[in-house]
């Protein structure tokens, strides 16, 4: 029996009817990772010994005391700190770093009874759209091992697509959950800014970063988001707002739903296949009782520039903490303290991280602050207002997640601007702070395409409801990549 194609509910059914145990489910996750990961390269540090022990203990807990995610395996993106389990954010500067506490989300996973099997590869400090910026390895897209899985949560999306684990956590600053979810044909949610605590998330751009779930189905995604959400006094930007039962929002009823479809998301540069897949999806939703109209988010084309100025500025400040003194990589070549800092950082950071630190430092430096940083903050207001206005009339906004499917490894790594353009349809969402999901909605040349559903502030329920109706009416989520068949059963 394989668990790789099972939902949380199906696995619980097997466990509760004693057809399997948590220990067996855990063992199979590790077997599958050991069989597939030499090809997929999604995982970094593994937690095998502790997870195996934890699973045996959990099998002793009475069924009545278990929640819907109890005993199920999960992988965690490597920018989320895990006590006693190496956490590097895929950077050399954190090689060997062993956190002394857990991120709030990791504590919440434990409280839900989930078993952390290991850490997932990513672009260094979440800066990138292809996972090629990891210091350690290049994760491959399970649908075609010559293509990228997307980024920065590429390991999180690839591990779910390959069936290595049914659940992972990612983080999304400008599309880093949704873009890889789209490329790998899985479900990825960026919650409303403030929905999930960022305590223990290694900061990239603090006003944009959010942790979110990656899964194969919408329902499992809703279950996992509920488990990790909630106010946290250790994150002053986490919202003090009640966490709904997201899975209960999946009523299957979208009668009368009003959908806005921004014409800017169908502009030049967006591939014909991606556009057609969204048009087909709109027809599916129309048949289920929704209506849609073309709308305009007029400031969309300014989002990319706004984002790179703001995110890089925040990053240049956040990453100043990496100095080699208290933790992480230390240079061996330093006469003075200044040389120590400069050499440690130059040897410890990769090129993309250096590029963004320098861009941010430049944008924040005197003489340029008003022209770049403050200007971008003002344009951010205009972008946010576009969404506020659209949501006065529409319940959700729908478009493609990415302009194209996954590209080849090495194809655009030396061209930062082309690489940045990957996130052109996901970035406005982070600038506004609203929630958005990517669900599989088609294929181009055998590679998955994603449908992006954007919701109002703290209205993940409607986003999930629409995503679930679409998923139930289509079978894209049931398609599996080539590695699936070749996997050890």
């Amino acid at each position, binding site marked *: 029996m394989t668990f790789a194609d099972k939902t949380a509910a199906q696995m619980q059914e097997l466990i509760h009817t004693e057809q399997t145990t948590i220990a067996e489910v855990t063992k199979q996750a590790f077997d599958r990772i050991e069989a597939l990961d030499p090809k997929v390269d999604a995982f970094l540090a593994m937690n095998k010994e502790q997870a195996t022990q934890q699973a045996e203990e959990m099998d002793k807990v009475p069924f009545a005391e278990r929640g819907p995610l109890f005993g199920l395996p999960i992988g965690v993106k490597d920018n989320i700190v895990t006590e006693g389990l190496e956490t590097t954010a895929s950077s050399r500067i954190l090689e060997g770093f*062993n956190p002394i506490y857990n991120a709030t989300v990791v504590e919440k996973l434990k409280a839900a009874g989930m078993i952390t099997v290991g850490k997932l590869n990513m672009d260094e400090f979440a800066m990138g759209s292809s996972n090629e910026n990891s210091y350690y390895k290049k994760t491959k897209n399970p649908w075609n091992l010559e293509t990228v899985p997307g980024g920065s949560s590429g390991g999180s999306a690839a591990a779910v697509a390959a069936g290595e684990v049914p659940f992972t956590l990612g983080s999304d600053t400008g599309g880093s959950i949704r873009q890889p979810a789209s490329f790998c044909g899985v479900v990825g949610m960026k919650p409303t800014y403030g929905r999930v605590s960022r305590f223990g998330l290694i900061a990239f751009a603090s006003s944009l970063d959010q942790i979110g779930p990656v899964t194969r189905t919408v329902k499992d995604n809703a279950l996992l988001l509920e488990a990790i959400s909630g106010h946290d006094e250790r994150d002053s930007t986490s919202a003090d707002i009640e966490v709904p039962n997201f899975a209960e929002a999946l009523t299957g009823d979208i009668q009368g739903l009003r959908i806005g479809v921004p014409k800017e998301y169908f502009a030049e540069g967006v591939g014909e296949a991606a556009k057609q897949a969204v048009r087909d999806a709109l027809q599916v939703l129309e048949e289920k009782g929704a209506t849609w109209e073309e709308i305009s988010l007029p400031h969309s084309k300014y989002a990319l520039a706004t984002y790179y100025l703001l995110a890089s500025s925040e990053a240049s400040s956040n990453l100043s903490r990496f100095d080699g003194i208290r933790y992480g990589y230390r240079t061996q070549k330093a006469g003075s303290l200044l040389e120590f800092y400069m050499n440690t950082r130059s040897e410890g950071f990769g090129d993309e991280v*250096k590029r963004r630190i320098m861009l941010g430092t430049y944008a924040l430096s005197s003489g340029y602050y008003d022209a770049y940083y403050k200007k971008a903050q003002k344009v951010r207001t205009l972008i946010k207002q576009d969404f506020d206005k659209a949501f006065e009339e529409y319940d959700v906004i729908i478009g493609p997640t990415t302009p194209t499917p996954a590209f080849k490894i090495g194809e655009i790594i030396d061209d930062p601007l082309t690489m940045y353009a990957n996130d052109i349809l996901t970035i406005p969402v982070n*600038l506004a702070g609203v929630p958005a999901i990517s669900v599989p909605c088609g294929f181009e040349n055998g590679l998955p395409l994603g449908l992006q559903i954007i919701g109002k502030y703290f209205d993940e329920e409607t986003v999930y409801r629409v995503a679930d109706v679409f998923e139930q009416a289509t079978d894209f989520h049931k398609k599996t990549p080539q590695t699936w068949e070749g996997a050890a059963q």
Partner: protein
Amino acid sequence: MAKMTKEEVIEVAHLARLAITDEEAVHFADQLEAITNAMELLNELDTENVEPTTHVLEMVNVLREDKSVPGLDRELVLKNVKEHEAGQVKVPTILE
């Protein structure tokens, strides 16, 4: 169109505490120039009367109760320090 020179890149790198070679500075100058030029697109917009957004949610500052709590255990704090001695972090000479 702003021109980014090698010298400017070296200055910015110094501010960011990054050591870079001349060769790297030339390479980064080209890339950063292309990126900052793309950012100039924002100048099309009149933002004279627009308030900047630093944060998307309506939030007020959060203060905790002013109460002393024990800090982290010294052994834990030193766990990830590469070089330490007698409970202290070792760094290169800071004064001649």
